[in-house]
């Protein structure tokens, strides 16, 4: 029966994971697939991310309903009740329409059975193949059977068949027989060879004798078909194109009728015949279209044909293709880093990439600086290992380059270079000198300008505005870089290493994915999306998330992913109707709090590693003596279905109220505890899995000799041999004792009852962001109250007249306002203000006062703050005073209204970054560069000869907007760079602006007499201080909302249940606001879609009789989950906000507050168990 999923997410990079989590948390089942054998995409290779220079992926994990998902570092892996993860799987076809898609997925086999592999690594030790490792970006080598990413748990090994040398050593070395090359199925894999060439017909059977493939050579197509007709179970047919074309085609068509999934391979004669009549190519192409699999060039040599056919056999037998039914599809396949050594568009020769060890791409540098990298995190040059002390970064490699079909800006490489420069300084304890060569330093995120200033002023990173043209091998293995600085001097510098800030390219499998998903691709090769509907692809029901639509940084990807999740969730709800099936009933567990603790301990003794290294009989005896342990049982291979069944029967027999399983890789079993809990009617919190497997490995001798070998070699024989078995058994014994002690102290009482959720949302602010968010929530069937201060909806976006990409924002806003006002689920309160708000996630109570003095009290489950912002007020240079000085917004409105006639103008000057990116407002307002370009193109369209001069510091056109910057230059606008200390001076002569400034290229003062001066004054947040402390949320120093985590929770607040979006979060274009609004809407739907929010297993409780109300725990709680209830004079814990971090427990001197699962006596018992000295083996004898 075909599996049903709410959504299919293609690509398990950070964007994919975010979309999957956002959907899974609203209760939808999600299938998450990725072509790579590991989770995390490019992020698994990055350890630090700007602007916080820290890792923080785990902050993306759900906060409420925590126990549905994994609660450990995301690098290890992801588990969620509603997400099924298929790795090594690609989308091969997508039919049907939204709400009912049929997706066929093809999964390339890894040839290793994931339930058997215990990642002991012995196969990798014996594998002779050496291939550049993708994880370490080619800097290190890996074997053909390898571990894709060291962190992932369960991290099973993978066979890379293409580089496998078929020596089968790994097959022999594997202790648990997890590697399966399907040897025995070879003898019934019949191969039919239809070829007129006798020599080939004789050779084939000989060649494949030792592989014992049954080969049936036939001289013509008919004989082959006869064989098939007689019922031969044929696996592969080789069709020689030397046969007449008609016969070959008939044979192929007939064969596919007899065996629909038969693999047919064409044997094409070598080049010269083909050209004679040119027919063979066309024939091959035709047959391929008909269903032939691939073409193999003749003449075949045994050394090349046998491995090829053997591998094809293995793929045919092991790979599988299955189809699932999904409501919506999200494509989050991300991007590939530009490879300078790529043959057609590469620049390896110019930049010595590949020939000089010191020239690295930014990804390679990232791996170099990572502790799991080739040099264990020491910054040494690959090759001669020289410590890197003088490092240079070269920006825009493979981006902003018209000749390499990359007229786009990858938008993250500038910030990545600054981060890597800071990382290099920190790793080398400030000895490294770092230089960044750039054209425009694109730091247009909200905190990014401060990040750059800090790097430049405090950390001493040197920024050089120049584009090195010549890279030469320097003295003793260093690199000589020649460049022209802005003053026109030719400079030459020597560096230890040169890092190329490589841009983004569409993923390699892009056209295959686009063809499979049926979506169009834009001219840069990325998925085509429109400006004002950013994550809709060309096909309805298929959404683009993360950097798949447009190259963007991690924060952008996450917001895009959230928006795509909202689009998909809305699509599913619209086509499936309100979710009919009732949420599965909460399984009720028997209350064991009255019973004496009885622990059942199950030891999985299946792996050979265990028997050889541990004296299991002594272990059993020791464990039986543990307090509270009533039964110790052995289970064979607990990781398999039948092993798990055996364990369940044992458990039902012993009827324990605690279950402890000693097995390998606990993360595989933890999700299964839920089933066991239902079977035994025992709360899974009273069960635990402990990893006894790693212990049996680590320790001095990792060889497999174990105790036996040690006894033989160790003279004392029965003496206390400290190397092998004694230490292992001790370690395992204490691990189990510790786990048992913890379980003994587990608190069996039921969790505090869940808080019911009022299924309504409150949106404060009726601008573009507020309305989009309200629509996003209302369309998914929830009530929304939209509160707007002004008399009408629309906010700042109503002032826009046209966009850079040529959309019409005016009509877009009119439609949006009309939809919001007509939507039955949205109640609009205009000219009204929030007066008071109390409560927590799921149960907010807010009082809104309307203009006519009416006060509404609203009960809602979540809140979105979208108070927006406005154009910054700039009063210098005659702005607002003189007629000839405008801001970009006024110019846009006048151009649209026609009050400014471009053809009558004789010259226009523009000044960018006016009073932005300076101390009073030290952030880039992100919209003015695009605004300026939009106006320039409009002016030039109406008057091509009009001279336009733009004074700029850095043009911030990230993503595809770069194309319009090139257009603006091509249209004749002259861009003149200025620095904060040589600012253009403006004064006025007979009511016309006169601008004098230094043109750095000419090195000369120029004086312009335009008749219009346009200032880009940037963006300021609305006055949100009052709203902020009404809802108890924070503001940044510039007055924007301070989100919980700028990268991983971009639209959430630290206080759960309140979200923010739009201009109030930071400067944003219309597209950014739309995206953050949709992402915020999906976060709200995540809360509203639950009937009641239950808290996690690990949550704090207050034992009131012991508490002396000192308030220490209130101030120490990072989530503000604790409060002093004045009238009941008690400390009250809000179970929803509490994330179980335990800070309160450590702050309370007399453990008046305790954390479920980590009571003081529990931890003390664990410490005792850890220190209980185990008698060595000798004592037993």
């Amino acid at each position, binding site marked *: 029966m075909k599996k049903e999923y709410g959504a299919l997410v293609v690509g398990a990079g950070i964007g994919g994971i975010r979309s999957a989590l956002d959907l899974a948390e609203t209760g939808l089942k999600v299938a998450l697939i990725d072509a790579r054998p590991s989770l995390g995409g490019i992020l698994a290779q990055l350890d630090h991310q700007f602007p916080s220079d820290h890792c923080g992926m785990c902050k993306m994990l759900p906060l409420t309903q925590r126990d549905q998902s994994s609660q450990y570092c995301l690098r290890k892996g992801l588990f969620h009740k509603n997400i099924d993860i298929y790795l090594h799987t690609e989308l091969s076809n997508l039919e049907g329409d939204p709400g009912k898609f049929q997706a066929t997925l093809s999964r390339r086999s890894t040839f290793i059975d994931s339930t058997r592999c215990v990642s002991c*690594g012995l196969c990798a030790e014996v594998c002779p193949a050496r291939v550049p490792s993708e994880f370490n970006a080619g800097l290190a080598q890996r074997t053909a059977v390898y571990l894709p990413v*060291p962190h992932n748990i369960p991290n099973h090994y993978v066979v890379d068949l293409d580089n496998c040398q078929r020596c089968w050593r790994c097959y022999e070395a594997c202790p648990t027989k997890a590697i399966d090359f399907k040897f025995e199925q070879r003898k019934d894999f019949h191969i039919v060879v239809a070829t007129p060439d006798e020599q080939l017909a004789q050779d084939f059977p000989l060649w494949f004798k030792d592989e014992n493939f049954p080969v049936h050579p036939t001289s013509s197509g008919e004989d082959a078909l006869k064989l098939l007709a007689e019922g031969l179970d044929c696996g592969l047919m080789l069709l020689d194109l030397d046969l007449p074309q008609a016969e070959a085609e008939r044979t192929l068509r007939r064969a596919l009728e007899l065996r629909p999934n038969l693999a047919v391979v064409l044997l094409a004669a070598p080049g010269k015949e083909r050209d004679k009549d040119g027919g063979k190519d066309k024939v091959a192409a035709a047959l391929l279209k008909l269903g032939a699999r691939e073409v193999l060039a003749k003449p075949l040599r045994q050394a090349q044909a046998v491995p090829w056919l053997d591998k094809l056999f293995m793929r045919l037998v092991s790979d599988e293709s299955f189809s699932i039914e999904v409501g919506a599809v999200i494509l989050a396949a991300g991007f590939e880093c530009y490879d300078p050594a790529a043959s057609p568009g590469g620049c390896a020769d110019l930049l010595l990439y590949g020939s000089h060890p010191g020239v690295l791409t930014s990804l390679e540098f990232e791996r170099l600086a990572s502790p799991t990298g080739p040099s264990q995190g020491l910054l040494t040059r690959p090759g001669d290992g020289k410590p890197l002390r003088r490092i240079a970064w070269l920006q825009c490699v493979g981006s902003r380059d018209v000749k390499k079909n990359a007229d786009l800006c990858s938008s993250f490489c500038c910030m990545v270079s600054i981060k890597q420069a800071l990382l290099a300084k920190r790793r080398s304890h400030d000895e490294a000198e770092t230089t960044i060569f750039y054209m425009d330093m694109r730091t247009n995120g909200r905190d990014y300008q401060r990040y750059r200033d800090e790097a430049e002023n405090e950390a001493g990173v040197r920024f050089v505005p120049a584009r090195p043209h010549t890279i030469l091998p320097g003295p003793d293995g260093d690199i000589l870089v020649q460049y022209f600085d802005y003053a026109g001097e030719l400079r030459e510098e020597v560096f230890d290493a040169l890092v190329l800030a490589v841009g983004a390219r569409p993923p390699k499998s892009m056209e295959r994915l686009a063809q499979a998903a049926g979506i169009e691709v834009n001219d840069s090769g990325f998925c085509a999306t429109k400006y004002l509907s950013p994550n809709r692809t060309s096909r309805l029901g298929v959404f683009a998330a993360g950097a798949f639509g447009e190259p963007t940084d991690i924060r952008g990807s996450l917001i895009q992913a959230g928006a795509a999740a909202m689009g998909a969730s809305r699509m599913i709800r619209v086509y499936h109707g309100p979710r009919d099936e009732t949420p599965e009933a909460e399984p009720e567990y028997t209350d064991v709090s009255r019973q004496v603790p009885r622990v059942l301990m199950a030891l999985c003794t299946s792996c050979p590693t265990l028997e050889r290294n541990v004296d299991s009989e002594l272990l059993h005896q020791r464990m039986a003596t*543990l307090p509270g342990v009533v039964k110790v049982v052995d289970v064979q291979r607990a990781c398999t279905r039948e092993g798990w069944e055996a364990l369940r029967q044992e458990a039902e027999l012993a009827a324990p109220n605690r279950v402890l399983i000693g097995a390998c890789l606990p993360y595989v079993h933890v999700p299964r505890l839920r089933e066991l809990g239902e079977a035994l009617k025992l709360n899974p919190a009273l069960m635990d899995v402990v990893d006894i497997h790693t212990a049996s490995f680590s320790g001095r001798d990792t060889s497999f000799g174990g105790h036996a070998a040690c006894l033989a070699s160790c003279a004392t024989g029965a003496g206390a041999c*400290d190397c092998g078995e004694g230490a292992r058994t001790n370690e395992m014994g204490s691990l189990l004792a510790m786990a048992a002690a913890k379980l003994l102290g587990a608190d069996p009482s039921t969790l505090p009852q869940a808080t019911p959720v009022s299924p309504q949302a409150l949106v404060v602010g009726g601008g573009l962001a507020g309305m989009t968010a309200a629509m996003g929530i209302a369309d998914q069937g929830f009530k929304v109250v939209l509160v707007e201060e002004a008399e009408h909806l629309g906010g700042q976006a109503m002032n826009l007249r046209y966009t850079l990409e040529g959309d019409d924002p005016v009509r877009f806003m009119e439609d949006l306002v009309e939809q919001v006002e007509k939507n039955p689920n949205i109640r609009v309160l205009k000219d009204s203000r929030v007066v008071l708000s109390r409560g927590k996630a799921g149960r907010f109570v807010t009082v809104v006062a309307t203009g006519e003095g009416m006060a509404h009290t609203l009960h809602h489950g979540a809140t979105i703050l979208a108070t927006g912002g406005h154009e910054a007020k700039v009063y210098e240079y005659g702005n607002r005073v003189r007629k000839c000085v405008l801001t970009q917004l006024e110019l846009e409105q006048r151009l649209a209204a026609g009050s400014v006639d471009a053809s009558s103008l004789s010259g226009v000057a523009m000044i960018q970054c006016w009073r932005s990116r300076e101390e009073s407002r030290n952030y880039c307002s992100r919209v003015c560069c695009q605004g300026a370009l939009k106006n320039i193109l409009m002016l030039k369209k109406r008057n091509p000869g009009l001279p336009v001069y733009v004074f700029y510091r850095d043009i911030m056109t990230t993503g595809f907007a770069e194309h319009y910057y090139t257009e603006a230059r091509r249209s004749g606008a002259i861009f003149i760079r200025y620095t904060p200390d040589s600012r253009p001076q403006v004064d006025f002569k007979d009511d016309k602006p006169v601008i004098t400034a230094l043109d750095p290229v000419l090195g000369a003062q120029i004086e312009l007499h335009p008749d219009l001066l346009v200032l880009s004054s940037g963006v300021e947040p609305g006055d949100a201080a009052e709203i902020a402390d009404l809802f108890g949320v924070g503001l940044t120093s510039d007055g924007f909302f301070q989100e919980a985590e700028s990268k991983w929770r971009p639209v959430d607040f630290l206080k759960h249940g309140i979200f923010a979006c739009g201009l109030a979060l930071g400067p944003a274009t219309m597209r950014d606001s739309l995206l953050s609004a949709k992402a915020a809407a999906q976060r709200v739907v995540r809360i509203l879609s639950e009937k009641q929010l239950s808290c996690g297993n690990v949550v704090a409780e207050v034992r009131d009789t012991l508490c002396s109300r000192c308030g220490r725990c209130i101030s120490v709680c*990072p989530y503000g989950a604790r409060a002093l209830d004045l009238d009941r004079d008690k400390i009250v814990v809000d179970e929803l906000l509490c994330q179980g971090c335990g800070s309160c*427990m*450590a702050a309370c001197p007399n453990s008046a507050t305790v954390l479920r699962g*980590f009571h003081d006596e529990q931890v*003390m018992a664990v410490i005792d168990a850890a*220190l209980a000295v185990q008698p060595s083996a000798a004592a037993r004898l």
Partner: protein
Amino acid sequence: MQELIMTPQMQGEPMPGAAFEPAIVAFVCNWCTYTAADLAGTSRMVQSPNVRLVRMMCTGMVDPKYIIKALLGGADAVLISGCHPGDCHYINGNYKARRRVKLLMEILPRFGIDSRRIKLTWVGASEGNEFAATVNRFAAEIKELGPIDTRSLPLL
């Protein structure tokens, strides 16, 4: 009620012939350090077998009385390892741990417990080699420092 059958380890001097094996209790945070420990374990970086990891949700949860309990209970050393400042899943748990260890470093060394027996380190999620190196170095250091003298004292 059975009890934990443990033969008496020693009256004063360690078992003849067996070298001194330090017993080290490590309080590790569930997020970054536990991932590094798993990474060190699965990638076979040799770890001394005498370190027992006690998994806490965050180093901010490590109460000074756990450290005192461990040292008095016979642990030769205590390692507290958490995420780098700024990486903490709970935003500022590691800053609290740092202050509490600072307080203990002022008290316990005055009673002859060598300050090297308590160690606070920050280990990132992918620093498996760093964690293994820290643990191995720490175990070697304690082994050379010798057993803690609380084990033989008739006190608790």
